[in-house]
């Protein structure tokens, strides 16, 4: 187990290295002086000279990359000249809303998609199955921001049930965090539900053709037990996998959702940084999100042990 763990963690290193090269190249691909681009429009000549020195721009590209990676390994993502603050500090400040939104979305999506997908597989070709498949094509096709505005229009403006936008920090007495997260989470979970429900339906329907399902039914187990304990449990690995892969979709969606609902999270930070051409922050946020994505999928791989005893490390 331990040796597998180490091997699996080691396998993520080349992936992260490639991400680091890409993010590093991003700034060097941009026409113009990287120091001037990083400093932004309002910087003085001295400031630009200072940045040149700190990035090691007089040296060769590999040496510059070396400086960047060694900073990265020390947890230093550089300094934003636009926000006049360390990028790590910026990320830490914006982390809570994004984490809360992602968490609520994942919980909602899994709780809706897995039961629906299982029921659809149970009566494949039935009305629920067809409705779910239709919905999932729709879920993949409606742009997140269009859905967001439809929900704002119906639930916040017409029915007046929920706040239109904004975010209340956890523990802030001025309002309920959860109430402000319902609309964004509904918006964001739609595409995620479509994805998970499809995979659940496909996997469970395949498991339901297995011999042990027939045996379970033949020995008189109620359908509920057959579905939950025999079918769903054996379909768990692909479902967990797609939940992990879907985190990439979720991260993309967070950027849009936070923008629609005015949530001051990491997605909003990304867009603001791009609009201000604040490259250190753009690089930092991409590194951070990619790191999270890789770690989530590492955890997904490790969790297989819990769901499938045939898999032993």
């Amino acid at each position, binding site marked *: 187990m331990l040796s597998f763990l180490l091997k699996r963690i080691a396998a993520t290193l080349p992936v992260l290295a490639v991400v680091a090269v890409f993010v590093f190249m991003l700034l060097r691909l941009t026409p113009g002086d990287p120091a001037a681009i990083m400093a932004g429009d309002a910087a003085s000549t001295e400031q630009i000279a200072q940045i040149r020195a700190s990035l090691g721009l007089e040296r060769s590209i590999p040496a510059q990359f070396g400086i960047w990676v060694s900073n990265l390994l020390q947890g230093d993502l550089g300094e934003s000249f636009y926000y006049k603050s360390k990028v790590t500090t910026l990320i830490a400040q914006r982390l809570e809303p994004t984490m809360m939104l992602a968490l609520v979305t994942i919980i909602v999506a899994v709780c809706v998609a897995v039961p629906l997908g299982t029921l659809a597989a149970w009566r494949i070709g039935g009305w629920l199955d067809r409705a779910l498949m239709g919905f999932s094509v729709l879920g*993949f096709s409606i742009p997140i921001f269009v859905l967001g505005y439809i929900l704002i229009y119906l639930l916040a403006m017409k029915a007046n049930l929920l706040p239109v936008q904004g975010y209340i920090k956890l523990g802030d007495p001025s309002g309920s965090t959860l109430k402000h997260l319902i609309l964004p989470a509904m918006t964001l979970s739609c595409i995620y539900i479509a994805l998970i429900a499809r995979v659940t339906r496909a996997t469970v329907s395949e498991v339901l053709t297995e011999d042990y399902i027939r045996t379970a039914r033949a020995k008189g187990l109620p359908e509920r037990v057959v579905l939950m304990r025999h079918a769903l449990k054996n379909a768990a690995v692909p479902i967990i996998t797609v939940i992990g892969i879907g985190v990439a979709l979720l991260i993309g969606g967070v950027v849009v959702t936070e923008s629609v609902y005015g949530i001051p999270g990491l997605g909003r930070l990304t867009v603001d940084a791009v609009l201000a051409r604040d490259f250190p922050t753009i690089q930092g946020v991409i590194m951070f999100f990619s790191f999270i994505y890789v770690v989530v999928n590492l955890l997904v791989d490790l969790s297989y042990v819990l769901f499938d005893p045939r898999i032993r490390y």
Partner: protein
Amino acid sequence: MAEDSALSVESANLAPVQKPAWRRALDAWAVRVGGVVLIVFTLIALTAPWLGTVDPTLFDAASRDLLPGKAGEITTLEGEQLKHTFLMGSDSLGRDIYSRVIYGARVSLIVGLSCAILSLSIGIVLGLSSGYLRWLDGPLMRVMDGMMAIPGILLAIALVSAWKASVLTVIVAIAIPEIPRVTRLVRSLVLTIREEPYVEAALSLGTPTITLMFRHILPNTVAPLIVQGTYICASAILVEAILSFLGVGLPSDVPTWGNIMAEGRAQFQQFPHNVFFPGIFLALTVLAVNMLGDGLRDTLDPKMSKKV
């Protein structure tokens, strides 16, 4: 005798003459509906100037914030005042939203199609090389793994921010994150197909590698690649709209569905139609492309349709 004929009837029933793949595809209702909607949108995009539109960049201060269906005036570049009915209302600068939505179809369709073609071509070359040149396989796949670890929209946003946004840079920025998936698909197809007897036969006849790749292997990857291409097209249209909507895509004077919504969002509470009209067009287009993709997948590539 009797037994013999019974057998032949049965075998005839077992193996009916199969229609060619493209005929089966055309019979699927999803392909038909998706295809017809897309043809209509393409025609709209091509004939935009003759559909009662005005130049989508024209504005008139007197016709600001009109509700859908209201008549008003629009000033041409020559300073002439024209009477015009604003079918979908006007935005806060007094531009005709109907004209902008109709012209916006051009950008979306061009971006979707170009991204699909670009990422497919690069992915095919990389996937074929990776599946055939074993020394290249390891390093190339590690690079692809790394690219896939960067969430696609984020990578596209970062790339457009590094370049000056134009139709070309937006297309390239959206296509790049799609390349790894195409490469992996082509590679896995190559690895399966190269074990087929006809490939071994060609190989034993001394067929050069290049001919083998493009004559014997590539044609067998066409069906899954067409399916993949439609999905890339749908997602590219979405991502382009997202980039424009966030304000990091094409310049705001270019009429794209995302741009119209970005301009409309400030006034969403008073004039929700500024966001909804382009939104409906966008959703319908993406839905049509996705339906086409699903239909093609079910008919052309039944193996893939079973997986999901």
